[in-house]
């Protein structure tokens, strides 16, 4: 079981890296935000899975905080778009 969990963790890490690459180089501003959002949600899953892998799943609290902060960050970005014109 630990092998499967470890494989899942590494695969999620790969997804995070791809999302990071999108945030590094994006055709539009919105793509960048999309990359950041995807990075955040995958991080939540990574923390949850790695908590089980390391045998201390009581750290799921941190995953909840990540999910929450990720959402608030997204809302802040949307609010920012209302102020400034996002198209370059």
């Amino acid at each position, binding site marked *: 079981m630990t092998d*499967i969990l470890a494989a899942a963790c590494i695969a999620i890490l790969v997804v995070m890296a791809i999302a990071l690459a999108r945030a590094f180089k994006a055709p*539009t501003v919105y793509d960048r935000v999309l990359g950041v959002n*995807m990075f955040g949600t*995958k991080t939540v899953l990574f923390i949850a899975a790695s908590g089980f892998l390391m045998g201390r799943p009581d750290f*799921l609290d941190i995953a909840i905080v990540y999910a929450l902060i990720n959402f608030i960050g997204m809302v802040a970005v949307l609010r920012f778009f209302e102020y400034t014109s996002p198209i370059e």
Partner: protein
Amino acid sequence: MDFLDIVSSILLLAGVFFGLSGAVGLFRFPDFFTRIHAASVTDSIAAILIIGGLLLQTSFDLNTAKLVFILLFLLVTSPTASHALAKSARHGGLLTLAESSPQDKQESAK
């Protein structure tokens, strides 16, 4: 490996597969609206499958409740964020591939 472990592994691997396919879609699709489609749909299904797989590893305690909370939270916020972002992009004047001029089409195809 007992039965629950096998089911849990299958769920985890399926979730990871959808996550990876969403990540590929983030780069392969031609315009923003198709990309956000790929990202948000796979995000939700990956969350359901992976957390579902982890749920089978718990023994009905506080961790189960926390995992269910995370799942519900992600299921509510992630599509909302995607929807609001797409709406904001539409509002900000971003066009779909079909609407944009042929010259833009060439640019985004690069």
